[in-house]
């Protein structure tokens, strides 16, 4: 069974059909990509998976259980983490604290535990800092753990967002255009990092515009156009698909 299953997922905003009857499966341990022209509804799909939008109809099914009715924070607790297309870090917190916030839902310290620094709270905090440093190290940010997130260069901010998402120990990581605005060298490194994360057992669901990145690392690619899935399959097959070429380049190409 697929880790994530989107079944007849539809979202309308007034008269606009942003996502239309989308069926999609993300296999555990895969890197699945969702591509499509601007405004195709890709981010809307992510927002429905993370429960930011309630689907107009259809279901998001994680490990066989529908997530309908859950709040975004409970979806995170169930094992889905995401990054944002426009970076949303906690700018005035250090990189380390950003990642620690990501661990929030895996920590159990209570209000009183925090005030009185109970033994379990201290142990948990220590373990969490270690885990957070580990994630920072994975993303190559350990040296800059004490810098304010807002002062990090753009490429590192994108990485920090991934580190924060990883800190919640997700089964499924949604990356919304992680390569946007990065240079070719950074893109190569990023692809490497994404593969590494997958190899450690986190399934990746990716929205990306950069075809080099998408074709290079994806196991499976789905193409959205005007909210409808127009093609799906192996990267090489999708690249040849006439419908996809038409959607990207226009009818005459």
């Amino acid at each position, binding site marked *: 069974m697929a880790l994530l299953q989107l079944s007849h997922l539809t979202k309308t905003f007034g008269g606009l059909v942003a996502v239309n009857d989308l069926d999609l499966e993300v296999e555990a341990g895969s890197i699945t990509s969702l591509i499509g022209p601007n405004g195709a509804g890709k981010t809307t799909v992510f927002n429905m998976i993370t429960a930011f939008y309630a689907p107009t109809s259809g279901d998001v099914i994680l490990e066989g259980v529908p997530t309908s009715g859950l*709040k*975004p924070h409970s979806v995170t607790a169930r094992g889905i983490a995401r990054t944002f297309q426009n970076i*949303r870090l906690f700018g*005035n917190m250090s990189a380390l604290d950003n990642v620690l916030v990501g661990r*929030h839902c895996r920590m159990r310290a209570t209000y009183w535990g925090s005030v009185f620094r109970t033994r379990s709270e201290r142990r948990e*905090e220590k373990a969490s800092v270690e885990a957070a440093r580990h994630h920072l190290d994975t993303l190559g940010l350990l040296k800059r753990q004490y810098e304010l997130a807002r002062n990090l260069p753009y490429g590192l901010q994108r990485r920090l967002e991934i580190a924060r998402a990883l800190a919640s120990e997700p089964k499924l990581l949604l990356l919304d255009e992680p390569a946007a605005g990065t240079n070719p060298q950074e893109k190569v490194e990023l692809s490497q990092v994404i593969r590494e994360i997958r190899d450690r057992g986190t399934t990746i669901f990716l929205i990306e515009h950069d075809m080099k990145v998408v074709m290079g690392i994806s196991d499976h690619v789905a193409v959205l156009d005007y909210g409808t899935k127009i093609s799906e399959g192996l990267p090489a097959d999708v690249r040849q698909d006439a419908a996809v070429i038409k959607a990207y380049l226009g009818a005459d190409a």
Partner: protein
Amino acid sequence: MNVLKALEFLLHGPFGDYPVGGLNFGSLLVLCWQVAVFGGLYLAIRILAKRGLRVSIPHVRLPGLAGRRPLRDVRVLLAIALILPLVEMLTGGYYLTVTYNVELYVLLAIGLNIVVGYTGLLDLGYVAFFAVGAYVYGIFASPQLGETLHATFHFLVPATVGSGVHISMLVMLPIAGLAAAGFGVLIGIPTLRLRGDYLAIVTLGFGEITRIFAQNLDTPVNITNGPNGVVRIDDMFIGGYSFGDIANHIGPISIPPFLNYYYLVLLLIVITVFFVARLATSRVGRAWTAIREDEVAAEVAGIHTRNLKLLAYASGGFFGGMAGAVFAAGSHVIAPESFQLFLSVLVLCMVVVGGMGSIQGAAVGAVAIGLPYFLSSQLASLRVLIFGVILVLMITFRPQGLLPSQQRQAELAETVDDGTGLPHVEAAADLRQL
């Protein structure tokens, strides 16, 4: 008196003899004068600020505190706070009253700082918590409750109950705090979806509603005694020791009531600081800060934003409520007019002037605003002017506040050289190990 004359000229210019108030030629002239004077003053300040005139907090070195900033050192602040009233006792009672009032402001500012500074919820109705705490204490610790019960259920409750319930402050303080905390959750729930300006307006409304409620809740059942307020409120007492007893003494030295209250509030401040400091560097405090920075991202990071925001309101409310109870006991009388909107604004300004999200900042801000404000109480409307001038100066020259939190300090670029050339902050996780 010359100072007063000068200030009056500053405010009214040469048009001082016209009756001001209402819309007439004289008041229009005065208005134009004020716009000209203060506009000019403001521009002058802006120009000075552009020239790079920056105010930095003097880096005073005290023996034994090499390199530390004394105002940042909790031990120094505590030592000053402990000794100050004893010195003031030598000069007579008045300054003790002043200090005690400023101290209440400090407690309020630190409490509000949880809501505004850490969680980023712009709350303009903080006075409501103060009022709830004061009224809960006032109603229970005065004849008010007994008289009302007797008047309402006279067939059940004999008139002898009228002398009020006398309960130790060890019980009453937490009760007042918890009532205000509950009230915080209550007004927190409808405002959960609001942010920024909208939240400010709604909380402002709730603050006013609370006061007007207190003013009108004398019918049908007399709970708050309406505009007359609750009177004959007991002093705090613990065991057989009453805080209001002027016969209290240690050896030959008598202890004035305000000294008792002063140290009680100091104790409450220490407890509050303990709570806030511990929370700030833990899971809960980090979540609060994350909500302040980006609520959407916080929710996605797995933070139950609703509960944590309510928790912030409740925590801020708890300390505000206890401050209210002490206020009620210390002044023996509370009336709706003690809980005006202006008090909310004042406390909020203390937090902002001191530096948001910093405990020492809130304390220093409370002194910096509360002291001149309280001392100028005889200058009537001029005190608001002084207050305004302080605000304009602060916003122009030191927008981050007097003692900003480390984060905010780094944000406004006080660089520590670590080779990267970038501002450097300690993570909360490291601070706690210091």
